[in-house]
Protein backbone atom coordinates (compact mmCIF):
# COMPACT_ATOMS: atom_id res chain seq x y z
CA UNK A 1 0.00 0.00 0.00
CA UNK A 2 1.29 3.47 -0.83
CA UNK A 3 0.76 6.61 1.17
CA UNK A 4 0.93 10.28 0.25
CA UNK A 5 4.43 10.46 1.67
CA UNK A 6 5.77 7.51 -0.30
CA UNK A 7 7.98 8.48 -3.21
CA UNK A 8 6.50 7.85 -6.63
CA UNK A 9 8.48 5.59 -8.94
CA UNK A 10 8.51 6.10 -12.68
CA UNK A 11 10.35 4.97 -15.78
CA UNK A 12 12.75 7.54 -17.18
CA UNK A 13 11.50 7.84 -20.78
CA UNK A 14 14.93 8.25 -22.38
CA UNK A 15 16.99 5.63 -20.59
CA UNK A 16 14.27 3.37 -19.23
CA UNK A 17 15.74 3.51 -15.74
CA UNK A 18 13.53 3.68 -12.70
CA UNK A 19 13.55 7.10 -11.06
CA UNK A 20 11.97 8.53 -7.95
CA UNK A 21 9.56 11.45 -8.05
CA UNK A 22 8.43 13.61 -5.12
CA UNK A 23 5.45 12.23 -3.21
CA UNK A 24 3.36 15.31 -4.03
CA UNK A 25 4.05 15.21 -7.76
CA UNK A 26 1.30 16.69 -9.98
CA UNK A 27 0.14 15.89 -13.47
CA UNK A 28 1.53 18.66 -15.67
CA UNK A 29 4.55 19.20 -13.46
CA UNK A 30 8.02 19.38 -14.95
CA UNK A 31 10.71 17.23 -13.36
CA UNK A 32 14.43 17.40 -14.03
CA UNK A 33 15.51 13.86 -14.84
CA UNK A 34 18.08 12.75 -12.25
CA UNK A 35 19.58 10.52 -14.95
CA UNK A 36 19.87 12.73 -18.02
CA UNK A 37 19.05 16.21 -16.70
CA UNK A 38 16.32 16.47 -19.32
CA UNK A 39 13.10 18.23 -18.42
CA UNK A 40 10.33 15.66 -18.14
CA UNK A 41 6.62 16.30 -17.99
CA UNK A 42 4.36 14.21 -15.79
CA UNK A 43 1.66 13.02 -18.19
CA UNK A 44 -0.30 10.84 -15.78
CA UNK A 45 -0.03 9.42 -12.28
CA UNK A 46 -2.04 6.22 -12.60
CA UNK A 47 -0.01 4.76 -14.14
CA UNK A 48 2.93 7.12 -13.79
CA UNK A 49 3.98 8.25 -17.27
CA UNK A 50 6.73 10.73 -18.06
CA UNK A 51 7.57 12.31 -21.40
CA UNK A 52 10.19 14.77 -22.52
CA UNK A 53 8.82 18.24 -21.76
CA UNK A 54 8.00 20.64 -24.59
CA UNK A 55 10.72 23.04 -25.63
CA UNK A 56 10.50 26.58 -24.36
CA UNK A 57 8.30 28.65 -26.66
CA UNK A 58 8.55 32.32 -27.39
CA UNK A 59 5.29 33.36 -25.77
CA UNK A 60 5.92 31.56 -22.49
CA UNK A 61 6.21 33.69 -19.43
CA UNK A 62 4.17 35.64 -16.96
Amino acid sequence: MTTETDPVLAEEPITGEEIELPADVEVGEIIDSPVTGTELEVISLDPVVLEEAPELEEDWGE
Partner: protein
Amino acid sequence: MYIGVLYSRIRRDEKLLLAELRERGHEIEKIDVRRERFSLDSTTANVGDLDLVVDRCLSTSRSLYATRFLASYGVTVVNAPETAEVCADKAKNSLALAEAGVPTPATEVAFTKEAAMEAIESFGYPCVLKPVVGSWGRLMAKIDSRNAAEAILEHKETLGHYEHKVFYVQEFVDKPGRDVRVVAVDGEPVAAMTRSSDHWLTNAAKGGETESFAVDDRARDLVERASEAVGGGLLGVDLMEVGGADSGEYTVHEVNHTVEFKALNEATDVDVPARVADWLERRAAAAASDDSAADDVDEVTI
Protein backbone atom coordinates in the same frame (compact mmCIF):
# COMPACT_ATOMS: atom_id res chain seq x y z
CA MET B 1 -15.48 26.21 -3.60
CA TYR B 2 -14.93 24.44 -6.87
CA ILE B 3 -12.02 26.14 -8.62
CA GLY B 4 -10.68 25.55 -12.11
CA VAL B 5 -7.02 26.10 -12.86
CA LEU B 6 -6.07 26.71 -16.49
CA TYR B 7 -2.56 25.53 -17.12
CA SER B 8 -0.20 23.99 -19.61
CA ARG B 9 2.66 23.44 -17.23
CA ILE B 10 2.63 23.14 -13.44
CA ARG B 11 5.36 25.39 -12.11
CA ARG B 12 6.38 25.72 -8.50
CA ASP B 13 3.94 28.66 -8.33
CA GLU B 14 0.98 26.49 -9.33
CA LYS B 15 2.03 23.75 -6.92
CA LEU B 16 2.08 26.23 -4.05
CA LEU B 17 -1.35 27.56 -4.99
CA LEU B 18 -2.88 24.11 -5.53
CA ALA B 19 -1.57 22.95 -2.16
CA GLU B 20 -3.01 26.00 -0.42
CA LEU B 21 -6.43 25.63 -2.06
CA ARG B 22 -6.63 21.91 -1.32
CA GLU B 23 -5.59 22.48 2.27
CA ARG B 24 -8.57 24.80 2.62
CA GLY B 25 -10.86 22.06 1.36
CA HIS B 26 -11.57 23.49 -2.06
CA GLU B 27 -12.20 21.12 -4.93
CA ILE B 28 -9.83 21.67 -7.87
CA GLU B 29 -10.40 21.08 -11.56
CA LYS B 30 -7.06 21.19 -13.35
CA ILE B 31 -7.65 22.17 -16.96
CA ASP B 32 -4.74 21.44 -19.28
CA VAL B 33 -5.56 23.79 -22.17
CA ARG B 34 -3.50 21.68 -24.57
CA ARG B 35 -6.04 18.90 -24.31
CA GLU B 36 -9.24 20.94 -24.64
CA ARG B 37 -11.28 22.38 -27.47
CA PHE B 38 -13.25 25.60 -27.39
CA SER B 39 -16.25 26.10 -29.64
CA LEU B 40 -18.36 29.23 -29.87
CA ASP B 41 -20.79 28.15 -27.19
CA SER B 42 -19.15 25.35 -25.23
CA THR B 43 -15.92 23.57 -24.44
CA THR B 44 -14.67 20.09 -23.78
CA ALA B 45 -13.20 21.46 -20.53
CA ASN B 46 -15.24 20.67 -17.46
CA VAL B 47 -16.19 24.19 -16.45
CA GLY B 48 -19.97 23.95 -15.98
CA ASP B 49 -20.08 23.79 -12.18
CA LEU B 50 -16.99 25.82 -11.39
CA ASP B 51 -17.26 28.81 -9.10
CA LEU B 52 -14.19 30.41 -10.61
CA VAL B 53 -11.38 29.70 -13.05
CA VAL B 54 -7.90 31.03 -12.43
CA ASP B 55 -5.71 31.42 -15.49
CA ARG B 56 -2.21 30.09 -14.91
CA CYS B 57 -1.31 29.40 -18.53
CA LEU B 58 2.39 29.59 -19.19
CA SER B 59 1.73 30.33 -22.83
CA THR B 60 0.48 33.85 -23.44
CA SER B 61 -1.40 32.97 -26.62
CA ARG B 62 -3.26 30.14 -24.90
CA SER B 63 -4.02 32.39 -21.96
CA LEU B 64 -5.51 35.04 -24.23
CA TYR B 65 -7.80 32.69 -26.14
CA ALA B 66 -8.78 30.30 -23.36
CA THR B 67 -9.82 33.11 -21.02
CA ARG B 68 -11.73 34.83 -23.80
CA PHE B 69 -13.68 31.68 -24.65
CA LEU B 70 -14.45 30.83 -21.03
CA ALA B 71 -15.64 34.36 -20.32
CA SER B 72 -17.93 34.16 -23.35
CA TYR B 73 -19.62 31.12 -21.78
CA GLY B 74 -20.30 33.15 -18.64
CA VAL B 75 -17.54 31.50 -16.60
CA THR B 76 -15.88 33.79 -14.07
CA VAL B 77 -12.20 33.92 -15.03
CA VAL B 78 -9.36 35.65 -13.23
CA ASN B 79 -7.61 37.42 -14.61
CA ALA B 80 -10.20 38.65 -17.05
CA PRO B 81 -9.41 38.35 -20.77
CA GLU B 82 -9.46 42.13 -21.06
CA THR B 83 -6.66 42.34 -18.51
CA ALA B 84 -4.73 39.58 -20.23
CA GLU B 85 -4.99 41.35 -23.56
CA VAL B 86 -3.48 44.55 -22.21
CA CYS B 87 -0.77 42.89 -20.14
CA ALA B 88 0.28 40.38 -22.79
CA ASP B 89 1.42 43.10 -25.16
CA LYS B 90 4.04 45.60 -24.04
CA ALA B 91 2.76 48.31 -26.37
CA LYS B 92 -0.80 48.01 -25.05
CA ASN B 93 0.60 47.81 -21.53
CA SER B 94 2.55 51.04 -21.99
CA LEU B 95 -0.45 52.79 -23.52
CA ALA B 96 -2.75 51.76 -20.68
CA LEU B 97 -0.28 53.03 -18.09
CA ALA B 98 0.23 56.31 -19.93
CA GLU B 99 -3.50 56.83 -20.42
CA ALA B 100 -3.99 56.35 -16.67
CA GLY B 101 -1.31 58.93 -15.92
CA VAL B 102 1.00 56.34 -14.39
CA PRO B 103 4.66 57.27 -14.93
CA THR B 104 6.13 54.81 -17.40
CA PRO B 105 9.29 54.88 -19.53
CA ALA B 106 9.11 56.90 -22.74
CA THR B 107 8.32 54.47 -25.53
CA GLU B 108 7.90 54.52 -29.28
CA VAL B 109 6.61 51.86 -31.64
CA ALA B 110 7.68 51.69 -35.28
CA PHE B 111 6.92 49.19 -38.04
CA THR B 112 9.98 49.31 -40.25
CA LYS B 113 13.64 49.16 -39.38
CA GLU B 114 14.13 52.62 -40.87
CA ALA B 115 11.47 54.14 -38.65
CA ALA B 116 12.77 52.13 -35.68
CA MET B 117 16.25 53.49 -36.35
CA GLU B 118 14.86 57.00 -36.21
CA ALA B 119 13.21 56.21 -32.88
CA ILE B 120 16.45 54.77 -31.52
CA GLU B 121 18.46 57.78 -32.64
CA SER B 122 15.92 60.13 -31.09
CA PHE B 123 16.27 58.34 -27.74
CA GLY B 124 20.05 58.27 -28.05
CA TYR B 125 22.33 55.59 -26.65
CA PRO B 126 21.82 53.48 -24.70
CA CYS B 127 18.17 52.71 -25.31
CA VAL B 128 16.20 49.52 -25.19
CA LEU B 129 14.49 47.38 -27.82
CA LYS B 130 11.96 44.82 -26.58
CA PRO B 131 9.67 42.29 -28.22
CA VAL B 132 6.02 43.28 -27.69
CA VAL B 133 5.24 39.76 -26.50
CA GLY B 134 7.66 37.94 -24.26
CA SER B 135 8.78 37.51 -20.72
CA TRP B 136 11.63 36.64 -18.39
CA GLY B 137 13.86 39.22 -20.06
CA ARG B 138 14.17 37.22 -23.24
CA LEU B 139 15.17 38.93 -26.50
CA MET B 140 15.61 42.28 -24.79
CA ALA B 141 18.34 44.42 -26.24
CA LYS B 142 20.16 47.30 -24.64
CA ILE B 143 21.47 49.21 -27.62
CA ASP B 144 24.73 51.04 -27.06
CA SER B 145 25.57 52.20 -30.57
CA ARG B 146 24.22 52.78 -34.05
CA ASN B 147 26.16 49.77 -35.29
CA ALA B 148 24.48 47.52 -32.76
CA ALA B 149 21.08 49.02 -33.56
CA GLU B 150 21.48 48.34 -37.28
CA ALA B 151 22.48 44.74 -36.66
CA ILE B 152 19.67 44.00 -34.21
CA LEU B 153 17.03 45.61 -36.40
CA GLU B 154 18.19 43.68 -39.46
CA HIS B 155 18.15 40.43 -37.54
CA LYS B 156 14.68 41.09 -36.19
CA GLU B 157 13.32 42.05 -39.58
CA THR B 158 14.89 39.08 -41.33
CA LEU B 159 14.48 36.30 -38.80
CA GLY B 160 11.57 37.35 -36.70
CA HIS B 161 7.96 36.42 -36.43
CA TYR B 162 5.73 39.28 -37.63
CA GLU B 163 5.44 40.51 -34.05
CA HIS B 164 9.17 41.25 -34.14
CA LYS B 165 8.46 43.79 -36.85
CA VAL B 166 6.55 45.80 -34.29
CA PHE B 167 9.64 47.55 -33.01
CA TYR B 168 9.12 48.62 -29.40
CA VAL B 169 11.81 51.13 -28.51
CA GLN B 170 12.15 52.51 -25.02
CA GLU B 171 14.32 54.93 -23.13
CA PHE B 172 16.97 53.28 -21.00
CA VAL B 173 16.18 53.92 -17.34
CA ASP B 174 19.31 54.11 -15.25
CA LYS B 175 17.95 52.15 -12.30
CA PRO B 176 20.06 51.57 -9.16
CA GLY B 177 21.04 47.99 -10.07
CA ARG B 178 17.62 46.69 -9.15
CA ASP B 179 13.95 46.89 -9.93
CA VAL B 180 10.90 46.26 -7.79
CA ARG B 181 8.26 43.56 -8.23
CA VAL B 182 5.00 44.04 -6.39
CA VAL B 183 2.39 41.29 -6.47
CA ALA B 184 -1.00 42.83 -5.94
CA VAL B 185 -4.62 41.72 -5.87
CA ASP B 186 -6.96 44.31 -7.34
CA GLY B 187 -4.40 46.99 -6.63
CA GLU B 188 -3.67 46.00 -3.03
CA PRO B 189 -0.04 44.92 -2.58
CA VAL B 190 0.42 41.39 -1.25
CA ALA B 191 4.20 41.52 -1.03
CA ALA B 192 7.13 43.07 -2.83
CA MET B 193 10.75 42.37 -3.53
CA THR B 194 13.69 43.94 -5.24
CA ARG B 195 15.56 42.07 -7.96
CA SER B 196 19.22 43.03 -8.14
CA SER B 197 21.93 42.22 -10.60
CA ASP B 198 25.12 43.66 -12.06
CA HIS B 199 23.52 42.96 -15.44
CA TRP B 200 21.12 45.55 -16.83
CA LEU B 201 18.42 42.88 -16.80
CA THR B 202 17.48 42.16 -13.21
CA ASN B 203 14.64 39.64 -13.72
CA ALA B 204 14.56 36.82 -11.20
CA ALA B 205 14.37 34.49 -14.21
CA LYS B 206 17.73 35.91 -15.31
CA GLY B 207 19.27 35.18 -11.93
CA GLY B 208 18.63 38.52 -10.25
CA GLU B 209 19.00 38.35 -6.47
CA THR B 210 15.78 38.92 -4.61
CA GLU B 211 15.18 40.75 -1.36
CA SER B 212 12.05 41.82 0.48
CA PHE B 213 10.94 45.38 -0.24
CA ALA B 214 8.73 47.60 1.91
CA VAL B 215 6.13 49.26 -0.30
CA ASP B 216 5.99 52.99 0.46
CA ASP B 217 2.99 55.22 -0.11
CA ARG B 218 4.15 56.37 -3.52
CA ALA B 219 4.71 52.82 -4.78
CA ARG B 220 1.40 51.73 -3.26
CA ASP B 221 -0.41 54.50 -5.12
CA LEU B 222 1.27 53.61 -8.41
CA VAL B 223 0.51 49.90 -7.99
CA GLU B 224 -3.13 50.68 -7.35
CA ARG B 225 -3.37 52.93 -10.41
CA ALA B 226 -1.41 50.55 -12.63
CA SER B 227 -3.69 47.70 -11.61
CA GLU B 228 -6.77 49.74 -12.37
CA ALA B 229 -5.29 50.79 -15.71
CA VAL B 230 -5.13 47.19 -16.93
CA GLY B 231 -8.43 46.05 -15.44
CA GLY B 232 -7.34 44.74 -12.04
CA GLY B 233 -6.81 41.19 -10.85
CA LEU B 234 -3.85 39.21 -9.59
CA LEU B 235 -0.93 41.10 -11.06
CA GLY B 236 2.80 41.54 -10.93
CA VAL B 237 3.60 45.23 -11.17
CA ASP B 238 7.20 46.05 -12.06
CA LEU B 239 8.66 49.39 -11.07
CA MET B 240 12.05 51.00 -11.42
CA GLU B 241 13.34 53.56 -8.98
CA VAL B 242 14.30 56.76 -10.74
CA GLY B 243 16.83 59.15 -9.27
CA GLY B 244 18.37 56.55 -6.98
CA ALA B 245 17.24 53.84 -4.58
CA ASP B 246 16.05 56.25 -1.91
CA SER B 247 14.41 58.83 -4.12
CA GLY B 248 10.90 57.54 -3.54
CA GLU B 249 10.15 58.10 -7.22
CA TYR B 250 9.28 55.30 -9.59
CA THR B 251 8.39 54.51 -13.13
CA VAL B 252 6.17 51.52 -13.88
CA HIS B 253 7.52 49.59 -16.83
CA GLU B 254 5.25 46.58 -16.91
CA VAL B 255 2.26 44.79 -15.44
CA ASN B 256 2.18 40.98 -15.67
CA HIS B 257 -1.10 39.06 -15.73
CA THR B 258 -0.02 35.47 -15.00
CA VAL B 259 2.41 36.49 -12.34
CA GLU B 260 4.90 34.06 -10.85
CA PHE B 261 5.31 34.34 -7.10
CA LYS B 262 7.60 31.55 -5.94
CA ALA B 263 10.60 33.89 -5.73
CA LEU B 264 8.55 36.46 -3.85
CA ASN B 265 7.30 33.80 -1.47
CA GLU B 266 10.89 32.88 -0.65
CA ALA B 267 12.14 36.48 -0.44
CA THR B 268 9.52 37.74 1.99
CA ASP B 269 7.80 36.65 5.19
CA VAL B 270 4.42 36.88 3.49
CA ASP B 271 2.60 33.63 2.71
CA VAL B 272 1.89 34.66 -0.87
CA PRO B 273 -0.10 31.58 -1.94
CA ALA B 274 -2.33 32.03 1.11
CA ARG B 275 -2.97 35.66 0.26
CA VAL B 276 -3.74 34.71 -3.33
CA ALA B 277 -6.12 32.01 -2.13
CA ASP B 278 -7.83 34.56 0.17
CA TRP B 279 -8.39 36.77 -2.84
CA LEU B 280 -9.67 33.91 -5.00
CA GLU B 281 -12.17 33.05 -2.27
CA ARG B 282 -13.38 36.64 -2.20
CA ARG B 283 -13.68 36.76 -5.98
CA ALA B 284 -15.59 33.47 -6.09
CA ALA B 285 -17.95 34.66 -3.37
CA ALA B 286 -18.54 37.90 -5.28
CA ALA B 287 -19.23 35.97 -8.49
CA ALA B 288 -21.68 33.70 -6.68
CA SER B 289 -23.41 36.73 -5.23
CA ASP B 290 -23.68 38.31 -8.69
CA ASP B 291 -25.15 35.08 -10.10
CA SER B 292 -27.65 34.92 -7.29
CA ALA B 293 -28.72 38.52 -7.90
CA ALA B 294 -29.07 37.78 -11.62
CA ASP B 295 -31.25 34.76 -10.82
CA ASP B 296 -33.48 36.95 -8.65
CA VAL B 297 -33.88 39.39 -11.53
CA ASP B 298 -34.75 36.53 -13.87
CA GLU B 299 -37.41 35.30 -11.47
CA VAL B 300 -38.95 38.75 -11.22
CA THR B 301 -38.88 39.10 -15.02
CA ILE B 302 -40.60 35.75 -15.49
